[in-house]
């Protein structure tokens, strides 16, 4: 572990820019800490926090210090730069002579760095890596992305990464990992590398040595943070209990409140459903296939000739929760939930996954 001063953080950004990487990181926009392209150092949300999240409730508030990463997960997740909200998968041109057609796909993969990826989101990226393991465009973008993670010392009101074992320490496939440490309101950054690329990068930064005490303080703070989660989810036997209760009356009770608006699925960093639209230009000679984010809350999602499998919104909520917390284990060997809390915060009517899951898991019928 080493230390990077605030000026050193600036060097990090400049080095990345010098490498022609687009830096995606936290920015204050429209009353939220969203993710976006950082053009200058000041784009970081200096002295802003959003940790006081609640179900259907999000506000940014000023902090007393000048922390850059003194917030948690906002409305956007990193998936929009890897699994794009909308993407052309191929274009096709009809050949006039023989009625056939020629297809071409040109996935673009700009060089990028993600700055400030938290434990929950790092886990989410790992999950999507597995889902999209064969998707050429995803893999190309993933390949071109450098990940700079950040440890969480101040969890938010809807966070429960500790329950899901994805945080508050960022673990897994990062290139660099930072911990923002405030001394009298001024931040500096403890930094570790997690890959060869990370080590190379680190070598170009003005790092300072850091003491065993520093290290101990971070570990202690992380342990502390784990006890301050706004939410928790008892995962013991959860998947089995949920899967065994597709007929539970609670599904209908949630459906009475649920808007089937799909916000929960779209903010979730692991949700991967997509739909396909094939279309042509007006002359009919060129066609393209577009993939865009879809959701199991959409009626059309379950359409087959003769009817929609999940016409009842209760069935759609059940699909979401069961997929996330039960079926995902069978499909990908992990939970589909990383405990980031977004689906709780951004559900307009405050439906809380931890509460609903506990309600179904907690009683038989």
């Amino acid at each position, binding site marked *: 572990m080493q230390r990077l001063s605030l000026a050193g953080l600036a060097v990090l950004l400049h080095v990345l820019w010098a490498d022609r990487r687009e830096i995606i990181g936290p920015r204050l926009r429209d009353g939220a800490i969203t993710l976006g392209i950082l053009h200058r150092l000041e784009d970081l949300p200096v002295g802003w926090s959003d940790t006081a999240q609640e179900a259907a409730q999000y506000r940014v508030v000023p902090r007393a210090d000048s922390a850059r990463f003194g917030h948690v997960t906002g409305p956007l997740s990193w998936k929009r730069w890897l699994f794009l909200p909308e993407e052309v998968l191929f274009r096709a041109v009809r050949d006039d002579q023989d009625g056939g057609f020629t297809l071409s796909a040109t996935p673009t993969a700009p060089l990028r760095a993600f700055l400030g990826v938290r434990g929950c989101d790092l886990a989410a990226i790992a999950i999507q890596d597995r889902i999209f393991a064969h998707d050429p465009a995803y893999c190309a973008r993933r390949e071109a992305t450098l990940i700079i993670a950040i440890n969480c010392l101040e969890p938010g009101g809807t966070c429960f990464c500790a329950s899901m074992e994805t945080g508050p320490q960022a673990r897994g496939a990062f290139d660099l990992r930072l911990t923002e440490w405030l001394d009298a309101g001024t931040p500096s950054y403890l930094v570790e590398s997690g890959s060869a690329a990370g080590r190379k990068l680190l070598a170009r930064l003005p790092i300072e040595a850091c003491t065993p005490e520093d290290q101990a303080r971070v570990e202690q703070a992380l342990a502390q943070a784990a006890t301050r989660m706004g939410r928790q989810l008892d995962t013991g036997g959860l998947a089995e209990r949920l899967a065994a209760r597709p007929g539970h009356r609670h599904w209908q009770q949630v459906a009475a409140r649920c808007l089937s608006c799909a916000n929960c699925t779209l*903010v979730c960093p692991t949700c991967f459903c997509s739909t396909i639209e094939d279309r042509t230009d007006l002359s009919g000679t060129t066609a393209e296939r577009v993939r865009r984010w879809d959701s199991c809350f959409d*009626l059309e999602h379950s359409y087959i000739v003769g009817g929609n499998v999940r016409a009842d919104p209760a069935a759609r909520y059940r699909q979401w929760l069961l997929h996330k917390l039960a079926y995902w284990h069978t499909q990908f060997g992990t939970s589909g939930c990383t405990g980031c809390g977004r689906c709780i915060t951004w559900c307009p009517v405050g439906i809380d996954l931890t509460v609903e899951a506990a309600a179904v898991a907690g009683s038989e019928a």
Partner: protein
Amino acid sequence: MNAARNTARNPSRPRLAVFKFASCDGCQLSLLDCEDELLAVCEAVEIAYFPEASSAMQPGPYDIVLVEGSITTAHDRERIRRVRRSARRLVTIGACATSGGIQALRNFRDVAEFAHLVYARPEYLDTLAESTPIAAHVPVDHELRGCPIDQRQLLALLDALLRGRRPSIPSAAVCTECKRAGQVCVTVAQGTPCLGPVTQAGCGALCPGFARGCYGCFGPKEAPNTDALAVKLGELGLDPPAVRRFWHTFNAGAGAFRRAGGG
């Protein structure tokens, strides 16, 4: 001469007609607003009847008929039947045609009183007590929502009809477009009342992009849970009359919004 002009190039082009009922003209203007595609559209279809744009008005039958506006007079009630008979495919465009439009607010009031408020000699009015959508009178093949409709949806629909594809008209909520666009939810982050969660997508989540709540101009989505959202609107500080007015604007005539607003 015009007929010759239109058919000379490609006699097999599908024939398009645009009819107007009670409306503001905005939806049909959307077609003329497709500056980049307009000439391509004219290559792909024969514009056989479109009085707003052309004085060459050819009789039916037509392959694709776009109908704007709602039915508010006895005369129009008859006219839409004739239009239907001339149409192979009839597409209603916009909130007026799909739900009765803003003028359907009369459905909850006394029209005679309305007429007196506006006109000195209301006895000359030929007007029905209700403003009704086209589908209340004749079968409709496809509908494009919105007040006004979205140009991209219009072009996509024409393209789909020309190719024989199922038009991709989403039935999901405005929220889906808001999230894809990466916008910040105005309800959760600002406490702004928004009808997005129960309104059908199609506009690209325009209003939240301008930091205001959706006012529902695309009408109710499939399975809209208006009760649950009404509770939320109350929590956000709208009093009951304000909640009722919120439901009752450009799609007040659409079943779910009508009921939600107590109509």
